[in-house]
């Protein structure tokens, strides 16, 4: 069977499971008594093991298998968690992660797993001396594995290897029927592989096929005589399985016999003995575990290439433009039925639009999830105490942004931990709690998503930064004195700048925050830093939602039309000319008790005068950027509309206060105003 087509899926899922394991391990570490976390970890590890074995990544399967044994003991409360055990498990997970990375990069996922395997076994064997039989079992098993490794061939009756046996054992513990099925096909059967496939299909709907003889590949290629055999695990009765198979035509005969695990594992008699009583004990608890597993698998998803979503989005954008055009035409023609139809189409395409947009959105959780683990490891390495607080992990961002934002965030967090947070001694001396806090916060605001990395560390040492910048030739010493705090802070993002005295492994590595900055800017975002000496530093990343369709207010300025994103509009208002006041040579208005500066779009955009008379009323769009507000003076409001964001192309970059363009119903281009640039 060609596994390549499954490889992507394997990698994706393996990553997800590793993520889940990591997250739960951390929860477990802070709450060691909670067996629920162990169960989650066990479940993920189990799936991972099955997947890797299926894909032929034996080292990974081996390692997960051993880890699973340890987890199983913890799960059944035969072993209490210690920080040593946690460390070993973390190490194993790391190793598995590196294997997955290796596989992602085209490697075969092999790695030396002997050290963690030995440690895991030591935990099972050593720390668990109280219950002799299991320890014996582990030892026996270990011998079996070693024997198998030496000889290279499993010696069991049905040619079941160690892994398959283990799966069978566990399934039996879960109260499943473990059977050996021999299927004989009709002599006249022409498409043997197809029949075999139907059998597999049928069986897989009721249980799990652990092993086939001959191999699946051989069966698919019809390299077998009339019969094939398989090891099968099911919750169904033997009779039901038999009749299900016999229902398939051209099947001559089916024999089903239970697999005697005791006999099949002669080198490890103890295993069977423990398995038997354990079976009774576990049956009730696992009865609930099994359906739970089903529900997690039951959330049906399909994986779709992001490119296809992009194409879908583009096509839909075209549709939106046509929709605008249709609306306009229908209005002009004034036919009632036509207008009704167009309205209906509007509603439907509105729904469609929502679905397409949300399809691309994923919670930042996906990225944030990996950070607690990283911080945990890093603080051990750096001998610092840090508590990572994550807020707003449910904030959603476009998938393309999510994919790119991981590295910059990683870098900022490492930076905060390495340079920001002081050592526990220093913190004590400064009268702060020994444990530092790093807050990772994501939130929506207007058209943007903000991600904040905030630490309560020492803050930026301005003098040191300035000195370094002068040394590196980034700043002219003559200008140094006149630089504002903000300017000095911004130096951190200058190319070739690193404040660490010694380039450490953590955030040194020759790349500075300039890389973070350029990465974020390439995503259409920006990053800024604020710092208070002694109190901490905050990095603020602003990212576009990259929604390709937004709601906007169309406004007219002389003969030109502009679109103002609805997300930055507070409201629109009409003032009388005499309501405009002057403050510091700046036109302002009183808007609900607040003094709001006025910005004339005609002046800012140098719109040519069309000579039309202006009346006494002044139309103003009140926009905001964070807490600040401004009033954009326009000639008239055209109305609200869904518009498709288009870029101005590679030629026109960084046009002042214009974030893009859109195509209106009449086919003309209207520019989209970037309100952020207009508010200082």
């Amino acid at each position, binding site marked *: 069977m060609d596994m390549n087509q499954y490889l992507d899926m394997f990698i994706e899922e393996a990553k997800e499971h590793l993520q889940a394991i990591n997250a739960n391990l951390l929860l477990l570490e802070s709450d060691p008594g909670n067996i629920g976390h162990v169960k989650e970890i066990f479940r993920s590890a189990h799936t991972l093991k099955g997947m890797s074995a299926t894909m032929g990544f034996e080292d990974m399967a081996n390692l997960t298998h051993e880890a699973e044994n340890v987890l199983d003991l913890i799960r059944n409360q035969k072993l209490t968690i210690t920080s040593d055990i946690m460390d070993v498990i973390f190490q194993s997970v790391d190793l598995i992660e590196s294997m997955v990375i290796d596989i992602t990069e085209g490697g075969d996922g092999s790695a030396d797993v002997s050290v963690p395997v030995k440690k895991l076994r030591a935990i099972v064997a050593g720390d668990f001396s109280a219950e002799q039989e299991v320890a014996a079992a582990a030892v026996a098993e270990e011998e079996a594995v070693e024997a198998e490794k030496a000889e290279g061939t499993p010696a069991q009756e049905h040619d079941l290897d160690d892994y398959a046996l283990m799966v069978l054992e566990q399934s039996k513990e879960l109260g499943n029927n473990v059977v050996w099925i021999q299927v004989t096909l009709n002599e006249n059967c022409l498409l043997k592989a197809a029949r075999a496939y139907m059998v597999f299909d049928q069986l897989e709907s009721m249980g799990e096929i652990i092993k086939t003889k001959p191999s699946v590949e051989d069966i698919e290629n019809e390299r077998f005589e009339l019969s094939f055999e398989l090891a099968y695990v099911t919750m169904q009765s033997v009779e039901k399985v038999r009749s299900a198979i016999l229902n398939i035509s051209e099947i001559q005969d089916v024999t089903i016999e239970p697999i005697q695990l005791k006999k099949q594992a002669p080198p490890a008699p103890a295993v069977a003995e423990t398995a038997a009583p354990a079976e009774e004990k576990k049956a009730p608890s696992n009865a609930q575990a099994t359906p739970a597993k089903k529900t997690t698998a039951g959330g049906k998803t399909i994986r779709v290439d992001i490119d296809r979503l992009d194409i879908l989005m583009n096509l839909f954008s*075209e549709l939106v*433009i046509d929709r605008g055009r249709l609306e306009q035409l229908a209005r002009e023609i004034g036919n009632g039925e036509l207008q009704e139809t167009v309205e209906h189409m509007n509603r439907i395409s509105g729904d469609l639009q929502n679905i397409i947009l949300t399809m691309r959105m994923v919670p930042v959780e996906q990225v944030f999830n990996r950070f607690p683990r990283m911080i945990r490891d890093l603080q051990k390495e750096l001998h610092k105490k840090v508590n990572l607080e994550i807020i707003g992990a449910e904030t959603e961002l476009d998938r393309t942004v999510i994919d790119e934002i991981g590295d910059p965030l990683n870098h900022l967090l490492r930076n905060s931990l390495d340079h920001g947070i002081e050592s526990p001694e220093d913190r004590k001396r400064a009268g702060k709690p020994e444990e530092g806090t790093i807050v990772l916060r994501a939130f929506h605001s207007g058209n943007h998503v903000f991600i904040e990395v905030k630490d309560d560390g020492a803050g930026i040492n301005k003098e040191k930064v300035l000195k370094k910048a002068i040394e590196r030739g980034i700043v002219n010493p003559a200008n140094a004195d006149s630089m504002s705090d903000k300017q000095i802070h911004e130096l951190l993002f200058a190319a070739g700048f690193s404040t660490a005295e010694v380039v450490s492994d953590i955030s040194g590595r020759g790349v500075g925050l300039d890389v973070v900055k350029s990465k974020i800017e390439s995503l259409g975002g920006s990053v800024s830093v604020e710092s208070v000496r002694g109190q901490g530093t905050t990095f603020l990343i602003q990212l576009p939602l990259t929604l390709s369709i937004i709601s906007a207010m169309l406004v007219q300025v002389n003969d*030109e039309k502009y679109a103002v994103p609805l997300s930055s509009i507070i409201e629109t208002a009409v003032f009388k000319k005499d309501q405009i006041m002057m403050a510091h040579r700046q036109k302002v208005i009183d808007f609900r008790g607040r003094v709001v500066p006025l910005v004339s779009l005609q002046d*800012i*955009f*140098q*719109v*040519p005068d069309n000579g039309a008379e202006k009346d006494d009323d002044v139309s103003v769009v009140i926009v905001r950027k964070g807490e600040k507000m401004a009033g954009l003076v326009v000639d008239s409001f055209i109305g609200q509309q869904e518009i498709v964001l*288009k*870029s*101005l*192309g*590679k*030629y*026109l*970059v*960084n*046009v*002042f*206060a*214009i974030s893009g*363009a859109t*195509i209106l119903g009449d*086919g*003309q*281009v*209207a*520019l989209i105003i970037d309100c952020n640039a207009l508010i200082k």
Partner: protein
Amino acid sequence: MLDQKEIVSEVKVIVFRLKDEEYGVEVNQVKSIEKLEHITRVPRTPQFVKGVINLRGVVTPIIDLRNRFGLEESLYSESTRIIIVAVGEVEVGLIVDAANDVIDIPVNAIEPPPEVVGGVEAAYLRGVAKLDKRLLILLNLDKVLSTEEIKQLDSIEG
């Protein structure tokens, strides 16, 4: 006429007119030739950027070549065309007085540009082709469309 043997290779160019001169751009850099349509002005851009148009759903910037080369601007007429060119990822429309010919030029008929041709800086030119009685100025589009210059201009203006 040139002898057949002398023709080593040829380049196909689109010929357009600016003021009194004829210019050429290589055919493989030209995506289409459009009639003048409504141009949306983009504020705070260099003088020669006339704005953007909707080119079958793609927002495309438009440059007035006369202005770009420092020639005096004239009113657009019936024959005014927009030549859509693409260099790398940059796609831009060039406003020219007329575009009406596609010809093959033997490579060896192309000479390096003299210092100043019709007021256009030599940097924008790839060479001059002499064909019969025609003199064809070949553009160096990379240079004409260099965004570096826009950025520089930007910083000067802003």
